[in-house]
């Protein structure tokens, strides 16, 4: 910074992410509030000091109803830090700000809290299920001894060799356009349809969906060949690719 500032003290602006609880009420609000009271009675102080986001997506309510709901919640010491999915027309001054771009967090992160009960006591008719988007990565360099490529989200493609002492762990299939000398573990999160492909098989260990095969257990005829491996029942099958 070459420019002189009038005040030497700089303003610090930081980004920080907090875990917020999202409440998605449904109509009629009176019934919903009764169930909320029931939950609050069973786990006292659950909402105390906890940031709460109100999800009003697809609720046919107007500004007055929303205002009333916020007031009801405030009376129960549930402090709303933001409103998600609300049409601009129902939001107004004096209300928490509109939020967007929130990402769902897996239940484990808050599993200690009885948030699960919220679902139990009231089975929601149509929860939009988050479908995991299929992903894959491509690595253009050889994977060296001591390196591991861990990609539980999907397929791994290596353009190069995998050295002895290196390992590839993929949630999906593994494709190696080179020699596989190290370890390859496909379907690591439980995926029996994952496969392993390699241009030249010299592997130390192969695994699909937790079933593994050591170098000594492999048919000697496969060594040094282009091979694909897959799972049939509890055994790893292999065949030469042309």
């Amino acid at each position: 910074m070459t420019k002189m500032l009038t005040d030497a003290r700089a303003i610090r602006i930081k980004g920080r992410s907090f875990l917020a609880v999202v409440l998605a009420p449904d109509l009629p609000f009176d019934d919903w509030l009764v169930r909320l009271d029931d939950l609050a009675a069973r786990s006292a102080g659950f909402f105390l000091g906890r940031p709460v986001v109100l999800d009003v997506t697809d609720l046919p309510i107007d500004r007055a109803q929303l205002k009333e709901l916020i007031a009801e919640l405030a009376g129960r010491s549930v402090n709303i830090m933001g409103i998600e999915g609300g049409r601009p027309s129902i939001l107004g001054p004096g209300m928490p700000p509109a939020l967007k771009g929130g990402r769902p967090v897996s239940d484990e992160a808050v599993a200690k809290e009885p948030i699960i009960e919220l679902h139990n006591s009231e089975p929601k008719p149509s929860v939009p299920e988050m479908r995991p988007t299929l992903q894959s990565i491509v690595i253009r360099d050889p994977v060296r001894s001591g390196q591991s490529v861990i990609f539980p989200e999907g397929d791994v493609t290596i353009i190069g060799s995998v050295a002895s002492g290196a390992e590839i762990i993929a949630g999906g299939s593994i494709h190696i356009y080179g020699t596989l000398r190290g370890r390859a573990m496909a379907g690591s999160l439980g995926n029996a349809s994952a496969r392993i492909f390699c241009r030249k098989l010299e592997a130390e260990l192969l695994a699909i969906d937790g079933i593994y095969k050591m170098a000594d257990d492999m048919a000697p005829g496969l060594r040094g060949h282009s091979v694909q491996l897959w799972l049939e029942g509890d055994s790893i099958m292999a065949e030469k690719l042309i």
Partner: protein
Amino acid sequence: MGKVIVVTSGKGGVGKTTSTAALGAALAQRNERVVVVDFDVGLRNLDLVMGAERRVVYDLINVIQGEAKLSQALIRDKRLETLFLLPASQTRDKDNLTPEGVERVITELKRVFDWVICDSPAGIESGATLAMRHADMAVVVTNPEVSSVRDSDRIIGLLDSKTMKAERGERMEKHLLLTRYDANRAERGDMLKVEDVLEILSIPLIGIIPESMDVLRASNIGAPVTLADARSAPAMAYFDAARRLAGEVLPITIPGEKRGIFGKIFARRAA
């Protein structure tokens, strides 16, 4: 600005120190200013191979700790005006080798010398990672046998992740120097073949140094093999490797083979 080369291998006893001294002397004979730096604190050897063990007063650790100036620690070779040695400490603890200190010394050396050749200790501990940290290019010394090749592969992985160049997102230039190559054993199939090593490591080859008594003899008289007996087979191979480091393109000869078809094949493979 000079170029910083790290001579490394992972495994011990493959010929890092011998190669550092030989390449340093070979480059210095091209009238370029060269300093060889020993990073093996506690187990220094480069001073012996360079024949300077009785002239060590200050060392790398002294410079890093601010107890001596760089010019006081540098030892000029008696035979070559442009060749210098910065010895390691034999008595101090290797924890005295700090990242900031190493950076300062390397930056200073780069200003004065055309080539700064760092002799890495074996292993993958802090000494080895600090020796490679500021390098512009790496010479990976490998013997044609499986354990050395696997360790070299590990070191190449570290060169691509732990160095300043890698952290800046640039690509570290890596060269393979195959040492202790025995033509007779290769013929009998007792050693990995050159093409197998190249296939596993997939980095360009800058030279194959034959196993030779000349190397041992040179070490024992305290001279780099490229100074002790410039006409010997290993010395010639080191001279060629030094020329390739400097950017010349030469066909590579496999010891025991006739120069010709093979040289052409490997020149192409290595490119």
